[in-house]
């Protein structure tokens, strides 16, 4: 008889009446990479949190190696060799990599043998080609490196069932490639891996078998060889997904946003100038960390800049506060939605208020109009097909994609002239991405100016009328999308200008 390494049988989980997992079955073979797919809110994270003992299932059972287990808290999961890399890292920033990894590992063993631990961790790190400096402070690491620390932490504890919840959502394409290799290596070492992602190409690259969830229910489990990305997409959303978008050619209007000679990074040798016009999408490509965060925050007035000018609708906004800038007509979809856009424990309705809490019809003379806010929230939820169990649910309990839909709908609904969309589809499922892309194009056709900052090159290419490339805080190039030669953007992202050779 074939005994699975991990089995979840008939798992059901309700949140105050709402069913997040509805009799879900998941069987994972020893040593396989099992990809868990599903739209935002399908119940993937919830299911994994049950396996990890963070949530308790209302019905169903968990089996490890053919034996039923009762995982009532994370400690038990840990003893059974289950480890998870959450989408939000749980590292202590001001400790070193090594300290983070061995932290809290041995209860009772107070006098930590750092030398011995160092050796063990170093061996693990080399074994999987992690290329980590164990003495570096975690706060100095890139996102991809931090993730490797999380993985190493789990490996160090001897986990052999490794769950990764949307690990690539925060990675650059290069880092994602590296992670795929790591997953492959871990599989070679006999680890069992459950890999949650929204990116079908990643699934097709590394998975052995694939389970698709929809609306909290099983749809299908298939071998990778027996399926195609198109079919998977259809399983996930229950309809055909359009992978390409028809973009109408449109004449751009007058400039809305102009940035002149603004320095993004202190170490940049040159300043940035660009403008975004009515009815166009300007895409900013580039590997993250090359000034993207600075660019969005400078435009919004969240970050100080010494020289240069920024004007909106021809008005110099250098000395204006964020509030005045937003009131002039900027909609802002920040790249870090948890930090910059959400009041996690506030209700969905109260989140729709953020930034518009002094505006009619939501407020009159400083008194909030609850009914108006709720009406608006309902409209948005319906219009954007946001999955919620009620207006008074906290936004933090929504799935990632639905949180983003709330934010996008909030920021585009107040008729802004300019929309700053930074990483607008990060962590979203293909259905939601398609939806947000269509929204951005609709807004463009309505004459809005859109600055799209994204690490996803395909997204930039698909939506932008003009494309600029950021590298080390400098704008390498800015021209019409179809003026770029094949592969040119990729080179620019790496700091190389085509034809001139390397410069940096």
């Amino acid at each position, binding site marked *: 008889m074939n005994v699975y390494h991990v089995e979840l049988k008939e798992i059901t989980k309700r949140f105050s009446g709402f069913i997040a997992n509805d009799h879900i079955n998941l069987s994972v073979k020893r040593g396989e990479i099992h990809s868990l797919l599903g739209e935002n809110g399908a119940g993937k994270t919830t299911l994994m949190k049950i396996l990890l003992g963070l949530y308790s299932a209302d019905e169903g059972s968990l089996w490890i190696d053919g034996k039923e287990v009762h995982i009532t808290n994370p400690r038990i999961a840990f003893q059974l060799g289950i480890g998870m890399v959450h989408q939000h890292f749980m590292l202590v920033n001001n400790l070193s990599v090594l300290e983070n990894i061995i932290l809290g590992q041995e209860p009772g063993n107070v006098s930590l043998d750092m030398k011995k631990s160092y050796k063990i961790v170093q061996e693990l790190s080399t074994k999987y080609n992690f290329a980590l400096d164990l003495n570096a402070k975690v706060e100095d690491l890139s996102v991809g490196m931090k993730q490797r620390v999380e993985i190493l932490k789990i490996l160090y504890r001897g986990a052999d069932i490794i769950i990764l919840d949307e690990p690539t959502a925060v990675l650059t394409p290069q880092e994602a490639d590296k992670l795929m290799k790591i997953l492959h290596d871990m599989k070679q070492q006999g680890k069992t891996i459950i890999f949650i992602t929204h990116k079908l190409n990643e699934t097709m690259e590394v998975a052995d078998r694939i389970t698709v969830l929809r609306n909290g229910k099983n749809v299908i489990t298939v071998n990778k060889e027996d399926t195609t990305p198109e079919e998977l997409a259809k399983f996930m959303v229950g309809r055909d997904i359009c992978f390409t978008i028809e973009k109408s050619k449109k004449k751009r209007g007058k400039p809305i946003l102009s940035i002149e000679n603004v320095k993004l990074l202190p170490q940049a040798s040159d300043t940035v100038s660009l403008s975004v016009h009515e009815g166009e999408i300007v895409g900013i490509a580039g590997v993250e960390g090359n000034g993207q965060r600075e660019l969005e925050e400078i435009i919004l007035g969240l970050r100080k800049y010494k020289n240069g000018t920024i004007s909106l609708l021809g008005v110099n906004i250098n000395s204006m*506060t964020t509030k005045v800038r937003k009131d002039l007509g900027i909609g802002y979809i920040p790249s870090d939605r948890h930090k910059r856009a959400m009041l996690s424990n*506030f209700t969905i309705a109260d989140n729709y208020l953020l930034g518009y809490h002094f505006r009619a019809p939501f407020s009159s003379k400083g008194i909030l109009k609850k009914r108006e806010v709720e009406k608006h929230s309902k409209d948005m939820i319906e219009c954007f097909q946001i999955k919620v169990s009620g207006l008074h649910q906290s936004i933090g309990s929504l799935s990632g994609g639905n949180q983003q839909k709330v934010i996008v709908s909030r920021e585009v609904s107040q008729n802004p002239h300019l929309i700053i969309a930074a990483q607008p589809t990060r962590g979203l499922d293909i259905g939601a991405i398609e939806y947000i892309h269509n929204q951005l194009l609709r807004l463009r056709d309505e004459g809005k100016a859109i600055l799209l900052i994204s690490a996803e090159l395909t997204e930039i290419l698909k939506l932008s009328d003009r494309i600029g490339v950021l590298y080390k805080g400098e704008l390498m190039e800015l021209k019409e999308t179809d003026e770029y030669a094949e592969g040119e953007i990729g080179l620019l992202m790496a700091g190389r200008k085509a034809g001139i050779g390397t410069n940096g």
Partner: protein
Amino acid sequence: MGKWNVKFKMKDNVPNNQHSDFILSMIAMVCSFLVAGIFILLVGQSPVAAYIALFQGAFGSVSSIANTLCKSVPLMFTGIAVAFAMKGGLLNVGAEGQLYIGALASVVLALKLPNLPGFILLPVSILFGCLGGMVWGGIAGFLKAKRGVNEVIVTLMMNYIAILFTSYLVNGPFKAEGMVPQTEVVPTGAAFPKLIPRTQLTVTLFLAILVVILVYLFLQKTSWGYEIRAVGENSSAAEAGGIHITKTTILTMAISGGIAALAGISESLGTYGRFIDNFSPSFGFTGIAIAVLGKGNPFGTIITAILFGAMDAGSMRMNRVAGISASMVNVIQGLVILFIAAPQIYRILLAGRRKS
């Protein structure tokens, strides 16, 4: 409280429900009476007799009820003052100092302008007292917003400054004739009218209830209140939403200080009719407990303040009749805090273990 209790909630994160939260507070209250009862048994007394005496001392007659309410008024003010700051993500442990400054400011003003008619003098004195508290609280807000100095440390330090400074003034420049360090009695026009004759209870009771309700409405129903709550929940997101963090932080601490000042004002212009050196039995610190127990909801704050007031008022009778030291109520109050804090501490420990 939002920020405090939800942060550590790892399981089934349902939006926090104020009613069930308050019920938790009440359960903690009952538990502490039970545990304190065991202590009383251990010293060979009857807890039942003790609690009956306590209850009678607090609610047994009109004058004892008046006494209970009188003792709860300053606690309502300090409780809601601290709760207000908590909603804005700030821990104001300086209500004690703010109420001393407020009390002295109001009394001094009333003494300096004795010729004004009462209907002007009283409101003006109250406002001046509040202004004092606002400045005192606002300083901590300013240092927090502009310099990033922890408000807990600043407000705590400023307690000592306020208490010693007012003590100096009332022992020196403003001292009335006699041995006791206190000011002259304020003109009748500047004193809060009595609610029940021959008791210390004044109309400040209604003022306190009104302020508690207004604070709640301000936070929940106005745009400014929304800004304060948003900053308390996530200041980076609030900032991106156009909310001015510096302004809001200073405003939050100033308002909190102004409300705390009312506790001192109600005592000096109401209960005593003058400023007395060291008059506050830590109303400001008890206010922190009230804020935690009352969960920042108006009903909870008022009830908790009355319960604490009742314990203080009844303790004398418990001592006289049942022979239990009056400080047993301090034990009970301490236990309440412990029971309320316990789940919190448990969660923190658990979260720590999970992270590692």
